[in-house]
């Protein structure tokens, strides 16, 4: 039901989302415009408690360095002591600022750089043997709210997750995360499903996307229903000793997913065997029978090979 799937966040194959540790893809400009629209409607998607500014600078450094390293044709970072110049060609940005001086940027450091980086970002303060959700930029989430969770500790913000507390998963996960070391990031994958290719499925906007779940029919399931995979990575921040937790969301529609017979067979079995608590938690309840019926026709019962790559 739950698998321990944490591994070192190291470079993967060329052409994959792991070619760089911070992935920038063909949706970059569109996703940044989408983020700006969400923020204009709801500024509380981006929050940073007063003690988290230093962690914001840590994150700015991390994302600028990683994006410039992976995509030099798009991003350039030049450092002369505290004087930094950041060029972001896809968004037409060329800013010179003083690292550590918030008055030299148009936004706080976390907001500035996460308006230019794909994926959601949670910055966790580490103290009292726990992690605290004290800052974040969250506009592409799977039904959770930064505004609700801000200031909560690791157990509090995970409280709604079914069956995992009893198994001691969060105690072990916290122990692992509080020991993440500088220069040794880790990652895991998480998944759920989304109807229509929406990035913003927040509780704040439930009235916009919730009703989509009632629109799935045997005819449109392949086009409407998407597997949503989150690539979550965990990084120790050097100056603040906090942890940043980027959550990068990728969507694939069923019609595309089933082009790989192994994926079709496996997803059918996963959806079929998922415990009821998780079906409800992931919000699949209403359209699961339709999805299952559709997927079952693509499952010939043969075994699937190990790993998530296609055969």
């Amino acid at each position, binding site marked *: 039901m739950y698998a321990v799937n944490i591994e070192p966040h190291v470079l993967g194959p060329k052409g994959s989302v792991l070619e760089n540790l911070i992935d920038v893809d063909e949706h970059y400009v569109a996703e940044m415009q989408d983020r700006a629209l969400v923020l204009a409607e709801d500024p509380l998607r981006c929050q940073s408690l007063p003690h*988290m500014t230093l962690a914001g600078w840590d994150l700015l450094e991390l994302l600028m360095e990683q994006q410039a390293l992976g995509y030099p044709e798009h991003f350039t970072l030049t450092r002369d002591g505290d004087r930094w110049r950041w060029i972001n060609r896809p968004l037409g940005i060329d800013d010179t600022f003083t690292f550590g001086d918030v008055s030299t940027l148009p936004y706080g450091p976390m907001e500035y750089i996460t308006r230019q980086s794909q994926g959601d970002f949670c910055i966790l303060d*580490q103290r009292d043997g726990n992690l605290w959700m004290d800052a974040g930029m969250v506009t592409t989430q799977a039904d959770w709210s930064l505004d609700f969770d801000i200031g909560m500790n690791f157990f509090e913000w995970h409280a709604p997750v079914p069956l995992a507390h009893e198994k001691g998963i969060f105690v072990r996960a916290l122990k692992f995360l509080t020991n*993440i*070391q*500088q220069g*040794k990031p*880790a990652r895991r994958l998480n998944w759920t499903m989304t109807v229509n290719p929406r990035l913003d499925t927040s509780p704040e906007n439930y009235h916009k996307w919730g009703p989509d779940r009632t629109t799935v029919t045997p005819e449109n399931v392949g086009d409407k229903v998407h597997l949503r995979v989150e690539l979550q990575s965990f990084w120790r921040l050097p100056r603040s*000793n906090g942890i940043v937790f980027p959550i990068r969301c990728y969507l694939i529609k069923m019609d595309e997913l089933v082009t790989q017979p192994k994926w079709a067979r496996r997803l059918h079995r996963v959806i079929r065997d998922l415990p009821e608590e998780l079906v409800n938690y992931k919000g699949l309840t209403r359209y699961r029978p339709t999805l299952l019926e559709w997927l079952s026709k693509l499952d010939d019962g043969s075994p699937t090979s190990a790993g998530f790559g296609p055969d």
Partner: protein
Amino acid sequence: MSTGTTKLDVVVSDVVPVNELVTRFHFRRRDGQLLPTFSGGAHVVVEMRDGERTRLNPYSLMGSPLDTREYTISVRRDDVGRGGSLFMHRNVRPGMEMVISYPVNLFSLDLRARKHLMLAGGIGITPFMAQTAQLAADGGNFELHYTCRTASLGTYADVLRERYDRRVRLYHDDRDERIELDRLLSSQPLGTHLYVCGPSGMIDWVRDRAAALGWPAETVHFEHFAAPQPGAPFDVTLAVSGKTIRVGEQQSLLEAVEAAGVDPPYLCRGGVCGQCETNVISSDGKFIHNDHWLSEEEHRCGKKIMPCVSRFEGRSLVLER
């Protein structure tokens, strides 16, 4: 997946005697690059290759986190210790190539604090050197109370006074100057966090008084810098790897396990981080627990041991390693 830190190849760029007991060591990267940024309170583990023996000792970084051209540590010579500090004082010279770990912070500032009240004893001053530099650069509110045996052993007292003037208060044992702890703890503004680093007795005293005076536990931060103590040699069976090892008088159990080719995870090597916690399968004898990680109950039960600092006396000890 094992935890632990990445290593840094460094060269000793300077060795500076500070007083009759303390020497400062400067490290730069061998490849000429900048060192990783760190946060005040972080330590590095220094690998000391001493003939056949490898010692791994943690030392607080004491330079400014804003300057990553070099790292600096200060080592107090311990003539009756296990030899790590003597090795540093006697063998380490400028130009020598060494290996250190990435910085790890187990004594972090709580950045929510409206004021940081710091109490240092002796060589416990070192993490505060970095923390005060970090806070001062950003207009942070701090006050440092520093106890030392004599003025000449007040390591960096002059530097701190010059940098921070009246924000630093010195106390000399030989002049019978004592911190008026209760008065100090009773007169702090709301939102103050307390940090203490020094001998165990001092840490216990400060924590006890803070608790008695109503300080919430989450506002009291402390770092023990206890090194592993030497002791009588003892034999241990490592059940998982099928090895029997002898822990030498000057060796820690963790070092003996590592010398046998088994690598448990570690971060602090000082009994506080919990990484090397090891299950005891069976034992016939007495544990000498020196860690600050396991609870008193766990110490009594004899089901767990922290091999970085704790020892054993008796007939047999079998560990799940």
